[in-house]
Structure formats: C-alpha cells, structure tokens
C-alpha cells in the first residue's frame, strides 16, 4: 500500500505542477479570475497530496484505503482543472474580438448581475448563446477556497458569427440564468404566491400524464425561463421582442411540453411586459406592422386542453406579476420608451447616412438604446413586415455597424466619466 500511495501522491503533485506551468498567471484581463482559482485548486491539491505522502510509511495500515480514495479524489479534481483550462485556454485575455462586442457583454454583466461577474467569451460551434456559471459547474474545486468574486461566467457565442447583434437580447436572457443563480430565485420564492401555483400543479396531475415531481420540475424551469425573458425585455425593450420573434421563432404553434414555455406564450408575455413599461405606443407608431404580426401570433395559441398544460399555464399565470416586478427591480439602466421616442428622429437622420450615433442630449447612448433605435429604424426602412424583421436581424453589415456604434458610445461614456 505504501508504494501505491507514494505513486498516486507523486502523480497528483507532478500533475498539479504541470497544470500550473501551463497557465499564464502573470497576465491580466477577462477570465483571469478563473485562472487564479484553477491555480489555487492545483496548489491545494499539491499540498494535500504532499501531506498524504508525508504519512508514508503508514503507522496504521488500516487508514491506507481511505488515503488512497482521497488521492483518487484529488486526481479527479485535477482532471476537472484540466478540462476547464482546455476549454477556456484561448479565451483568457483574448484580443481577437471587436471591442464593441466586449463592451456589450460587460454592459450585460453590469446591468443584470447584482454580484457582477468576470466574463469569459468563448466561441463555441455547439453551445449557441448559452452562459455557464463556471464556479457552479466546478464547485468541488473551491470547496476549501472562498467563493470567487467576481464569479467567472462563460459566455458561449456562436463561433461562426460572434458579432451577430441579435445575440444581445438573447444573451440578456442567458445572463438572466446567472442572475437567477446569484439570488433572484430566492427573491422570487419570497414574493411569488407559490401556494396558489402549487394548487394548480396538483390539479394537473392525472393518470397517464406527467408525475407531480416532473410537473414541479417543469414549473421550476418555466418560471426561470420567464424571469430571464422578463429581464431581457425590461433591459433591451423592443429589441428582445424583435430578436425573440426571429430566434424562437414565434411562428411555432403548439409543441410538446418542454423545459421552455411555448414560443407564442413567451412572445405574448414579452408584449405584456413591454405594454406595462409603456412601449406599446412606441411600437404601434414606429413599427405597427411587425407589432401587429407579433400580437396576432401571440394571441393565436393552440391549446391542447391537456390538464398538465392547463395546470402549468395557470401556475405560471399566478406568479407572472411577481416575475415582472422582480425583473423591473433587478435590471438596471434599461432602455426607456420616452428617451427613445424623443431621440429616434435624430438617430434616424444619422443612421440613414450610415453614421454611428453616440450621444443624445449630451449623454452617451447605452447599448440597449442603440440596438432598439437601430432595429426599429431599419425594420421601418425595409417596409415594417415580418420579412423586414428577419432581414434586419440577420444583416451582418448592420450588426457590425451596431457593434461599432456600441464601441464608440461606450468610449464616449468612459471618457466623459473619467
């Protein structure tokens, strides 16, 4: 046993040292909070492995198996370090992404995450748009270290089209999942009428349908998704309506019950939130065609009448006001209809000339104001039809232009505040 323990401890110590050498601890930039934590984890593994090696030869052979298990656990932790280093190695402090895109991600973090985050932008061919709370995903690594602040959060962007500005509202939804994990779930539990919701769920349990536990899981997933929608709608205003109508897409009618609410229900909810925030007049006067199309589709929901679907809808309906209220209090610096309405004519004049607009009334435009104004103007210019909506969201030149505009507007703000 002594030989095996020495062998395993030596492996853990050598592997820790090798992983530490493979990182670039001297560099600064986005993502280095994760690097620092991975190095800490390696150092801790090395210390613990050395401690075990120091107990060999064993005074009490009976403890050998437990020490062996401990060493295997440490080696498993190093595998996890290896995995995260391998996944994000090219993303730490990267300088191959447009500055405007990075500013936009920073703004999402600032405006939606109460505890902040260290964003790691990871171009992935597989996981379009999703975000990953890296700390939560590897929490066994930090069991003995203090929780990292700010949390590293991985932003997956589509590898083939990372500049697509459509991702901004969609990313706002995805960042909402991190906000959920940072405490919004507890806040919602404290304010929503979960008792009434539970009653609806109980009534939805019927022979041959989903079990009570499965319904509870679906409900938990739905309310999280709707809170993320609400956060994105509050923060980015009409942009979330435009992006989600294209991205979901809204034309999808009835689908099997899944972990996301039905697309048309989500668009209907987005329209209700926008209405509550005072966006309806703006939408009806600037893009009446697209607004009406979204409203028509959202109102044309195919109900199956199945008790599970009915119960889930009713349960979500009960807590919807609490979700909306929470999103309104949690999203800071949202785009406001009044400011957009009073400046969109000036914006459109420059936009038509293909000149980035960077400020309104002596204050820098926020990324969310910029996206909402640009998409509204372009949809209107192209005829205010669903086709115009699709063309606008997928126009790569327009997306690049908007990303550049975001960069210039943020630089103006930073310069003014410095």
């Amino acid at each position, binding site marked *: 046993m002594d030989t095996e323990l020495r062998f395993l401890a030596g492996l853990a110590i050598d592997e820790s040292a090798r992983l530490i050498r493979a990182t670039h601890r001297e560099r600064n930039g986005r993502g280095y909070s994760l690097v620092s934590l991975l190095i800490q984890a390696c150092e801790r593994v090395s210390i613990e492995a050395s401690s075990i090696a120091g107990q060999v030869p064993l005074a009490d052979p009976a403890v050998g198996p437990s020490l062996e298990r401990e060493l295997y656990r440490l080696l498993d932790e190093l595998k996890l370090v290896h995995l995260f280093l391998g996944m994000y190695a090219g993303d730490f402090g990267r*300088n*191959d*992404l*447009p*500055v405007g895109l*990075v500013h936009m991600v920073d703004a999402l973090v600032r405006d939606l995450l109460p505890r902040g985050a260290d964003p790691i932008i990871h171009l992935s061919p597989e996981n379009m748009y999703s975000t990953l709370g890296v700390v939560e995903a590897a929490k066994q690594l930090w069991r003995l270290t203090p929780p990292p602040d700010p949390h590293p959060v991985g932003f997956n962007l589509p590898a083939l089209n990372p500049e697509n500005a459509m991702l901004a509202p969609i990313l706002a939804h995805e960042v909402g999942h991190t906000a959920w994990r940072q405490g919004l779930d507890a806040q919602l539990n404290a304010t929503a009428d979960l008792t009434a919701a539970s009653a609806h769920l109980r009534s939805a349990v019927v022979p041959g349908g989903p079990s009570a536990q499965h319904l509870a899981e679906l409900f938990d997933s739905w309310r999280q998704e709707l809170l993320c929608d609400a956060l994105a709608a509050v923060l980015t205003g009409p942009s979330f309506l435009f992006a989600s109508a294209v991205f979901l897409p809204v034309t999808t009618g009835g689908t099997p019950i899944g972990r996301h609410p039905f697309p048309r229900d989500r668009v209907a909810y987005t329209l209700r939130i926008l209405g509550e925030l005072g966006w309806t007049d703006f939408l009806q006067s600037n893009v009446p065609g697209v607004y009406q199309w979204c409203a028509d589709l959202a109102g044309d929901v195919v109900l199956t009448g199945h008790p599970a679907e009915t119960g889930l809808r009713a349960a979500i309906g009960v807590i919807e006001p609490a979700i909306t209220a929470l999103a309104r209090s949690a999203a800071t610096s949202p785009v406001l209809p009044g400011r957009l309405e009073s400046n969109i004519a000036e914006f459109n*004049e*420059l936009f038509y*000339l*293909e*000149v*980035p*607009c*960077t*400020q309104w009334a002596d204050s820098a435009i926020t990324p969310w104001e910029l996206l909402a104004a640009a998409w509204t103007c372009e949809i209107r210019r192209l005829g205010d039809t669903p086709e115009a909506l699709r063309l606008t969201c997928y*126009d790569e*030149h*327009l997306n*690049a*232009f908007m990303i*550049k505009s975001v*960069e*210039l*507007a943020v*630089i*103006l703000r*930073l*310069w003014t505040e410095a």
Partner: protein
Amino acid sequence: MSLLLRDQLLAAMSRPEAGTRLIVAPLLDAEQVGGGTIDLRLGTEFIESRRWTEAGIDPLELSGEDVSRSARSEEGVFVSLGAEFVLHPGQFVLGATLEFVRLPSDISGQVVGRSSWGRLGLIVATAVVVQPGFAGVLTLELVNTGNVPIHLYPGLRVAQLQLWKADAPTTLPISDRVKYAVPLGPESVHLAWDSSEVGRIKTIGGQLEGGNGP
C-alpha cells in the same frame, strides 16, 4: 479649393442638414478642432501582417487568389481603451482612427501624422487622401522607424485631418456600396481592384519586350 480654418471647420460641423454636415464622431474633446486641422485619435483595431512564404508582393502578378492569401496572412488585433499595442522597431501595422468621419460632397481632406509622434520615429499616415462623401473610420499606416518599441494606446491623438472646401460639390456619385458596409476598422490591400489597369500595363510590357515598342 481653400483650406478650412477653425471657424470654418466648426461651421461645417454645425450645418443644420446632416447630409451636408462634416461629421467627426465621437469628438471626445472640443479642443481636437485646432487652428487648421482636426486631431484624430488612434482606434481600437489593428491588422498585423505575419511573415509569409511567398517570394514577394508583385502587383503585376497578383491575382484575386493571391490577395485573399495575403489577407489570410493578416491578423486582426483589438485593443480596448486603456490597453496598449506595442509597435516594435521596423514593424508595420494597419490601424484606424477612433473617430468615424463623414465628409460632405464639397469637402475633401488629407490625413497627416502629428509631429510629436514623428520625432519618436512613428509614421502614422502616408498622405491619406479622403475623398468628398467618404464615410467611415480612416485607415492609418503605422510604422515604427525608430530604434525602440513604441507603446500605442487607443484614444491617443496620433494624426490630424486637414480639410479643403471645393468651389462646387463633386459630380462623382458616392459609390453604390452595400448599406452599412462602410469602413469600420482598418482596411487591407485593395490591389486587385486595379486589375484592368494591371492587365494593360502587362500588355504594354509584353509588347515592349517583344520588340514592338514605339
């Protein structure tokens, strides 16, 4: 043609109709408008050229395929405000202005370096002409001709724009480019665009070599 001085520059930037206005955005500091020039700042995007395996760049032998191969040898680098880009002795990179510039159809311009940088050995722009009606950021050709590395920071004033007002607007229409496809960062080589003239030069060269000269 007359050089625009400070008051005329400010007047051109204040024309009521956006389409005829001289636009420099964002203008981070009003003092960028000097006596007869507008200071321009270094932008956040650079194009570095890697050493490549071709024998050299010969415009007469350059095909569209070669140009794209040349473009593949380039690497875009983005540097945020507050971060640095180190330009080593002898290194050449393409940069761009931070400002987005739009000239009305009756004004043309020229980008020149600022003397303080020139004295450090930094060449910023090789007489970049800006045509009336241009819209976009301006590409800068940055070369360190000195002996020590120069640390460049986006936001620093590195160039200046001289502008001339013409007696009448240009009669050449602004190109029918794709909407929003204005230059947003440094622009790379466009040699292939002159392919018809390259063909003519090659033809003349062939005639002369074949003894059919004048």
